[in-house]
């Protein structure tokens, strides 16, 4: 189905970003504008998500240029669910920022940069071709470099470089791979690529020389952005230093875009035929090690922010586990897991922000007895933490259930690792809960720094995200249905290809440049 309004999801935040640059220094208009922009996009995308709940695909060809020649935006079950989740996270973190960001940070360029981040994220989710995926990545990363170095303490600067250089190298490799794909197959449109590649595999012609190498290069690129096993070293420090609203925004969006890129491009194009035999073992090993080492790292930490940041890595492992199976249920499980993880993880970070405001520290030695002081925070943290662990009525349970059940028949040992990781996650979350909230404060407790009032925005943000997390858990079936459609469309991409590129012009020319 054609829907010409899809571009709004990129245009609205872009326009908001530009306008809020003009409003720099005036906090209230910037805030109102930002909430309006995120809220309107959320309503639009929820409406579209309802429209496609039976597995339709919304497509917009920019400027009415047919698919392989123009820019295509696609809103299918996969991108739709993630866009909605991303906007929920952004709205929660944004409102939270009103009360926890320092006035200088907010008065400077937080608002334009946060909107710019959404431009990049939405474009990554929507785009239908490889090169615009690169452009989306770059917009998102530009905004994240800015957000990361805003305020600019010495530590923040040192960490910003690690993130900056790694991502620049990964992006350059991405450009080279995109160029190589174009040189081999003569198109960059994903639907067109899928048509050509599956056609060549089916006809026995085989993949072009070097195609497998490009697959692995792209896996490196997306792995670096998504913090998969050998490439996750940038993550803990990056999420440790910036203001907490920014860290929460990053934890909900950045790595997920990398995982999304794998989910979008690999089952469709880069893990077809002989490439699958090379890519799948890499994904399987990476999933296992990412899950397990991530959670071990988290258990050993003693600062709440670090624990949460390293848990992001371990959770990425679950998603890659789902992707590595390349089956309908596996991909659906991974998608459901991503959606719930984005919301839950961001709300945990936001809770940590309020904790820092109350006690002036996020070190577990120095906090305690918070449940008595702030019941709302304690309950929210508990719900979110147990969702992350995956206790039955909450959202994490259904994601893990699907993944582990599906994985049992394919890589049973990965399922065992996943269960073990779940147990260790419970351990580290209980550590935070008991020492931070349950037990009385120790002798070393530091004094609160921030003024006591003014946390309304923070509570609204946390409440919004936690209620959404509860909703995802209690209404698991309708959301999983949409995720299942996404899984079906990834394992059998005919619907996607027909919707995006009905003519197959480049494929009919034999796919040569």
């Amino acid at each position, binding site marked *: 189905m054609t829907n010409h309004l899809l571009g709004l999801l990129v245009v609205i935040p872009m326009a908001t970003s530009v306008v809020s640059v003009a409003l720099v220094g005036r906090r209230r208009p910037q805030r109102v504008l930002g909430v309006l922009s995120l809220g309107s996009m959320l309503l639009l995308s929820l409406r579209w998500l309802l429209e496609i709940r039976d597995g339709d695909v919304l497509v917009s060809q920019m400027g009415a240029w047919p698919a392989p020649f123009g820019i295509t935006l696609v809103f299918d079950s996969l991108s739709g669910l993630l866009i909605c989740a991303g906007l929920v996270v952004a709205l929660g973190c944004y409102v939270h920022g009103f009360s926890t960001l320092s006035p200088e940070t907010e008065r400077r360029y937080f608002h334009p940069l946060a909107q710019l981040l959404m431009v990049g994220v939405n474009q990554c989710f929507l785009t239908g071709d490889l*090169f615009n995926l690169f*452009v989306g990545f*770059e917009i998102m990363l*530009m905004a994240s*470099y*800015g957000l990361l*170095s805003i305020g*600019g303490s*010495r*530590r923040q*600067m*040192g960490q*910003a*470089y690690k993130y*900056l*250089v790694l991502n*620049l*190298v990964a992006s*350059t*490799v991405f*450009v*080279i791979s*995109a*160029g*190589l794909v*174009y*040189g081999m197959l003569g198109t960059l449109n994903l639907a067109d690529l899928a048509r050509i590649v599956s056609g060549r595999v089916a006809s026995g012609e085989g993949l072009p020389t070097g195609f497998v190498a490009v697959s692995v290069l792209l896996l490196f690129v997306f792995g670096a952005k998504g913090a998969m096993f050998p490439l996750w070293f940038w993550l803990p420090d990056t999420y440790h230093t910036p203001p907490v609203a920014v860290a929460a925004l990053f934890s909900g969006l950045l790595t997920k875009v990398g995982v999304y890129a794998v989910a979008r491009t690999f089952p469709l194009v880069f893990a077809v035929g002989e490439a699958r035999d090379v890519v799948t073992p890499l994904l399987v090993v990476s999933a296992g090690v990412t899950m397990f080492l991530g959670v071990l790292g988290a258990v050993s930490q003693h600062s709440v922010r670090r624990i949460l940041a390293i848990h992001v890595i371990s959770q990425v492992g679950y998603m890659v586990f789902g992707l590595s199976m390349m089956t309908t249920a596996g991909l659906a499980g991974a998608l459901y897991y991503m959606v719930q993880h984005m919301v839950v993880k961001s709300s945990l970070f936001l809770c940590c922000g309020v904790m820092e405001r109350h006690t002036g520290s996020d070190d577990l030695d120095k906090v305690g007895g918070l449940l008595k002081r702030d019941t709302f925070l304690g309950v929210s943290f508990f719900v979110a933490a147990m969702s992350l662990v995956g206790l039955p009525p909450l959202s994490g349970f259904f994601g893990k259930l699907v993944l582990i059940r599906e994985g049992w028949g394919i890589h049973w040992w990965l399922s065992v690792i996943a269960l073990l990781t779940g147990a260790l996650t419970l351990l580290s979350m209980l550590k935070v809960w008991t020492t931070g909230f349950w037990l009385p404060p120790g002798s070393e407790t530091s004094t609160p720094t921030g003024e006591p009032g003014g946390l309304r925005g923070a509570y609204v943000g946390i409440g919004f995200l936690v209620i959404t997390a509860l909703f995802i858990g209690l209404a698991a079936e309708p959301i999983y249905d949409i995720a299942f459609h996404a899984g079906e469309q990834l394992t059998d991409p005919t619907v996607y290809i027909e919707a995006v590129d009905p003519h197959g012009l480049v494929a009919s020319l034999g796919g040569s*440049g």
Partner: protein
Amino acid sequence: MTTVLAICVTVMVTVSVYLMLSRELKSIAMGVFLLGHGANLAILAMSGSPVLPWGGLRQPPILGGEHLVDALPQALILTAIVINFAVMGFFLTLLIVTARKTGTLNVDELAGEEPPRSSPELASEPAPVAGLETRSVAD
């Protein structure tokens, strides 16, 4: 022609890897930029040789003619150059701000947990970094 491009890309990537392995942020920045240019050349090579096998050159699409150059890789390069330029601007700004704030552009010194207050030249004000004077940035 493609061979020449391949050699250029190899040299640029080699030099950039060497630069990126240095401990000075300035060199790392130069390495990253050079890698970007190498990538652009690699994409250019994808549009095939401009020299036709039977002699003569391919024409740019705007001139028309029988044998046209593939314009799409050039469009990709144009986009990549713009992005590279923006990133370069940001990176250099960040370098200047870092040098002003901390007085060092060395990775090891920046990565330290606590600023090395003990070293005498850093105690009072940031020392000028060689080649990147904290005041005379304009020239």
